[in-house]
């Protein structure tokens, strides 16, 4: 998976991406495809929210529609525990073509933290 963002994003890779994101909303999938094609960082927030939604308890999903969600705590507000977080990271790696070490997740507590972390990753990788 390392540095797969550098590799050509061909039709086959797009198919794989759509397959791994198939339980996410259509908007999430399109944003991820666009991100992989163009590297447009404006897509990242849509992708993050879509991935969070996919791993959240359906009862808690409406929280993502609230204003100012950046301060929401991943565990206490969204119910995503550390293990689910690792699951989500795997999907982030696959969909955005990034590599994340589990140790880097320390200190990530809120949605805003995730956005900043992924945006930083996307810039450096």
């Amino acid at each position, binding site marked *: 998976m390392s540095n797969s963002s550098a590799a050509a994003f061909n039709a086959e890779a797009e198919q794989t991406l759509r397959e791994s994101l198939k*339980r996410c909303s259509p908007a999430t999938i399109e944003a991820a495809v666009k991100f992989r094609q163009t590297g447009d960082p404006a897509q990242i927030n849509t992708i993050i929210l879509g991935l969070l939604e996919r791993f959240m308890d359906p009862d808690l999903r409406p929280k993502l529609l609230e204003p100012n969600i950046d301060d929401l705590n991943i565990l206490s507000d969204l119910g995503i*525990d*550390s*293990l689910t*977080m*690792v*699951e989500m990271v*795997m999907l982030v790696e*696959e969909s955005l073509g990034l590599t994340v070490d*589990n*140790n880097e*997740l*320390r200190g990530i507590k809120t949605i805003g933290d995730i956005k900043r972390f992924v945006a930083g990753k996307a810039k450096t990788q």
Partner: protein
Amino acid sequence: MFEPVSNPLTPEAEQNLRELLKRCSPETVAAALHFRTTNDPAGVDIVVLGIIERFLDPEVRPRLRAGGDGLRIFDDLGIDSLTMVEVVMMVEEVLQIKINNEELRDLRTIGDIKVYINCRLKGLPLPERPVYVHVAEIVALLPQQPPFLFVQEATLRTDEARGVYKIAGDEFFLEGHFKNNPVLPASIMLEALGQLAVLYLLKAKRAELTSPVNPAKIFFTACDGVRCQRVCRPGDILTLVVKPKRIKHPLGRFQGHITCGTERVAYAEEITLTFDYLATEAPASSDGQPENITSAQTG
């Protein structure tokens, strides 16, 4: 080992070949003649299946004809080891190849045979040797134990684990599922796939598994895209298959499916297990990361 016959098939050799295959179907004979005159491996599957069919109990032949690479030579077709020797001798003679007994032991299904013959004729490297795991070893390795063990034998490759579960009929849960109508619960099907994935994590050689996995620290985490396609009852022999899609400590993600003979029974697009190593690695989890497990154990 394998020397293609470059000389044309003499009338005498053709006569011998026809004689040798006289109890095989006409298309088998035709395919064999085609192969021997042209060395074209395209029709070789027909030859090999035709030879196997010749040695089968007539009642079992439709099973072979129905196809399916998952058909097991011993369990599904009833070919014992002595008959297997006869099949091998005839295949050797007809295709003019030599099959050694070591390699023969790894061939358990019709699919294995096809792949093996094709590799030999095309000079390709043989597929990775599967590791066969006997029931006693499964019991020794897995945390799940009878009466809640649903993998009775298994073969492991780097990219796949296959297992077998025969529904005996005396399983405790069949008494109530259902009343006077024993049907294997779908939850047990998923459990069986989960157990096979556990076996994979404990036994398979895989670069991402950097140290031995702790059998007491594997738990079922998630399952997506599940569909059951066939009702299974006592006497059914289920073939379980799981393929690792991604392994990244502390998670392993698999896809799985179950068949019974040539019929599809169930599939799960994703089964995710969490695991930890026997020797806890460096301070990776000082922040409590892989420890906060909230899921139910497989079993």
